[in-house]
């Protein structure tokens, strides 16, 4: 598959990297830095420079992850899951003690948001569980109950924070792994029906008032243009006023005059679209498509069940971020605080997404190193 490797011009370790994904990713991160440069009013500080530095740091971390052997990952799956779950609990306890909600732990050298780490960890632990589950039991209650508990604990803890976006992301990642693992489809249909039945109840009793308003606003943002609908309205104005080619780099009035809320995090896509127009938007969507397609290919090419489920889940997690964020900025999903991978400014989401990328590269490496082996572990 790799022409460089065949030609022998470039050393194999470098040529072996998945450049088809990495080059578009670098382009996207660079583009993101440019947008953040503009969002800061034409300055590297405070967003663009830290965005690039973080990416480099996390890229190194991804490279380290890539080198993990399969056995180590499987061995570490449960312990890491338990540790992250304890961290989540710790956040909750500290929050209770201090009063008010808290989502992060200040470790001194960095601020850690355990709920973010939980997103890739849940994928690993479920992939590990299903791959070690005897094939015949896949339609039994054990295939549902244990993963249900594995997903349920962190989701419940994150919901308590309360952080609806992240808990949905964990649920989504876990669900996709279960789907790919081959659980009977009717369970998913039943779960979907149950969710549809519970949704109204959850909406009225489970959601905070501000969250309810955000959901309602999605259907009619103009109803309350200065209140809950403000975000969506301004985001659509930014995207819509950009037109085909945009207003030009550093010329976005919506972001520069602070009409657009969170122009450097959740609404970075709107900031970009205002200045780069539909062309910029299609570029971003195309790169995301390339990255996700590569992710699914890695999953499809995987030689064993663990790697396949792992890769599929990681790709799904990245997809969840992208889809919810883009649907939100275009006014098709409620405003939930989910940033756009590789473009939004923010360490936690970059960390999560780079762990996913690292995990995918790791599986890619396993695929290359063990061609056409059997399905046995």
């Amino acid at each position, binding site marked *: 598959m790799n022409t460089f490797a065949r030609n022998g011009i470039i050393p194999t370790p470098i040529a072996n990297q998945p450049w088809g994904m990495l080059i578009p990713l670098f382009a996207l991160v660079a583009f993101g830095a440019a947008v953040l440069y503009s969002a800061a009013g034409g300055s590297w500080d405070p967003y663009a420079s830290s965005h690039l530095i973080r990416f480099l740091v996390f890229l190194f971390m991804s490279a380290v992850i890539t080198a993990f052997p399969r056995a180590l990952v499987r061995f570490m799956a449960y312990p890491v899951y338990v540790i992250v779950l304890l961290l989540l609990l710790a956040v909750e306890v500290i929050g209770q003690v201090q009063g008010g909600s808290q989502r992060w732990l200040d470790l001194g050298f960095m601020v850690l948001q355990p709920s973010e780490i939980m997103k890739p960890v849940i994928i690993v632990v479920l992939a590990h569980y299903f791959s070690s589950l005897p094939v015949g039991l896949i339609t039994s209650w054990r295939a549902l109950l244990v993963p249900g508990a594995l997903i349920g604990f962190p989701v419940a803890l994150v919901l308590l924070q309360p952080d609806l976006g992240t808990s949905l992301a964990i649920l989504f990642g876990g669900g996709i792994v279960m789907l790919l693992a081959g659980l009977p489809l009717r369970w998913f249909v039943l779960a979907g029906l149950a969710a549809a039945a519970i949704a109204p109840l959850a909406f009225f009793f489970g959601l905070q008032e501000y969250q309810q308003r955000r959901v309602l606003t999605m259907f009619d943002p103009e109803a309350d243009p200065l209140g809950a609908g403000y975000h969506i309205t301004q985001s659509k104005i930014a995207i*819509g006023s950009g037109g*085909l080619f945009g207003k030009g780099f550093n010329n976005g*009035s919506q972001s520069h005059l602070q009409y657009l809320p969170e122009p450097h995090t959740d609404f970075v896509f709107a900031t970009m679209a205002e200045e780069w127009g539909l062309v910029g938007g299609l570029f971003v969507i195309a790169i995301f498509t390339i990255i996700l397609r590569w992710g699914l290919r890695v999953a499809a090419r995987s030689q064993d069940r663990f790697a396949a489920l792992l890769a599929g889940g990681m790709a799904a997690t990245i997809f969840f971020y992208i889809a919810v964020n883009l649907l939100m900025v275009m006014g098709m999903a409620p405003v939930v605080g989910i940033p756009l991978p590789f473009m939004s400014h923010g360490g936690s989401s970059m960390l999560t997404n780079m762990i996913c990328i690292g995990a995918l590269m790791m599986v890619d490496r396993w695929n290359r190193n063990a061609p056409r082996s059997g399905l046995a572990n």
Partner: protein
Amino acid sequence: MKNWFTWRSGAQRRGPLVNASTLKNTFDRRAFVIGGVQGGIAVLLAVRMGYIAIAENEKYQLESESNRVNLTLIPPRRGWILDRNGAPLASNRADFRVDVIPERLADPDAMIDQLGELLELEPDRVADIKLEIASASGFAPVEVASGLDYEQFAALSVRLPDMQGVVPQRGFSRFYPTGSSVGHLIGYVGPASAEEFDEDPNPLLVTPGYKIGKDGLEKQFEEELRGVPGARRVEVTAGGRIIRNLETREDIQGDPVRLTIDGPLQDYAARRIGLESGSVVVLDCEKGDILCMASMPSFDPNSFSDGIGSVEYAMLREDQRVPLRNKVLKGLYPPGSTVKPMHCMAFLRAGVSPSDAITCGGGRRIGNRFFNCWSNHGRVDMAKAIYQSCDSYFYHFAQQIGFDAVAEMAKTCGMGEQFDLPVTSQFYGTVPTAEWKFDKFGQEWQPYDTVNASIGQGYYLASPLQLAVSAARLATGRHVKPRLDLGTPPSGFDQVDFPDDHVRLVRQAMSDVVNGPGTAGRGRLPLEDTQMAGKTGTAQVVSLSVSDGRSGPWKYRDHGLFTFFAPTDKPRYAGAVVIEHGGGSGAAYPIARDVMTFMFDPAKGLELLKALEEQWGGTAQERLDQRYAAYATAQGASVPPTRRRDEAIFDRVEAEARLDAQRSEQIAGGFVAPRPAANPSEPPPSDMTTPPAERGAVE
């Protein structure tokens, strides 16, 4: 797709078909579907974005522009109101002001408290503003303060980012240099009311700092004075901070309006009225120019233009001298003896010879009843009847020629007439006739009605302006029409009302009132070469049994009237002075004398005024300010803030003026016996010099 999967689960139920290879198949299929869904969403997003950015591009571009660009109107500078010599009666001065837009205030009360503290506003002003905000509608701005100094303005501007809905700006505010002297004449300005905005939904009307004429000439000449607003396009942030100016169009100042008023004379006359309640009108006999129409006491249009405060309004309302009423146009008084020269003109026209005489025996028998004169004048011819103001003569000849003929002459002289003037409203009074009385009361005209009307009592009512016009017409013999706007051509001078010999005779008799053996000897001008002619009048407001007209409760005292012209031989100026409840004409003609003195010799006139004002405790404006300060200290806290519409205030003032005018009708149902004591040439009662406030307290 669903069927496809359902088939799978169906297959599972049928048997243990699950093995590693079927799982791998399931994985591949489901991964493929997930990939398809992802691709679908990518297409959906691309299409959606294309729709927003291309199909709806125009709409959103517009919205983005309207976000970015803020268009603010610059209120036009109002045109000046000038006197005949081009001196400003109303001008503009640059100042710093603060308005709030109630709709944008998150917590109005807290914000006003904060502003009140910052700008050191009085507590009653703060209460007024809160009330005004509570009843404000839409985007209509509410003025918080104007005339701020730079430090206050700067202090406010610094805090602006935290003060949504507060609009400080540098602008122009209306300024009336002579203050209360021109209050009734010029009126004042104020922010447009909701009704006015409904009528003319011009965004300018709700621009902070913009004011329209609310009363008087300010209202009358609104169109000329308004001007054209400028506009400023600025780029603003979501928080309202201005980034830069994009474009500015300067405002065009409104056109000036030039009046016939003589500014210094208007101010002088207003101040000369002093502690009394009354009005002074001076006309130019050559063109009909209204040189002065002062009505006192008055309000300060400067302070009214900043918003009428509750305390200020309460003080003005409680004052029985009705400072809110323009007495020149809306004060109606029985003209009393001032009608006598005019009535003589009627007698002359009816063929009565100037030398025809009667004997006044302290009164005269008309029909079968004896009617008193205020004195016993012996043999009285026309000239003596005027300068000695003998009532008997008028009883007799009015009876002889019939009062309808007299009434016709009165109307020729301007009684009952509404003049073509740019004023918001004027009362036209009453010239009683048999027909009028029957229409109004369903009663026949009685001999005593003729007697009453012949000396300007009974149902007779005239405004000071009408009295001044009648004096001008008598003095010139021409049908002088008053004008207030210097731009309108003089008119009426081609119409001769009286033959020259009649005019000469009446002029001489009226000169004798002042300069001869007449009733206003103290009215002689302190000038060597100029003489003033005039006619005194004392109008009784209650019957003899209630009051002697000179002392006791203020509102039962006689009105003092005086009509005049000067110089006697070649009249240049004519006018009228009416002092409400002045206790007789002795309160009126000294004012006319001083006003005319000022006209011919300003230095001497001012000298006289200075001495008087020292005695009164300052100029009219100073006294008004002192009174306000005293009132605010004594009553301020007990005056509840009330919300008033400016229109309602003046409707009420007008209604009360009509009621007041009707009061004298109460005694018109019988003979209004002139009081022997009511000799106009006597000096005014001794307590005339005590301030009205104290005199009022007797009641």
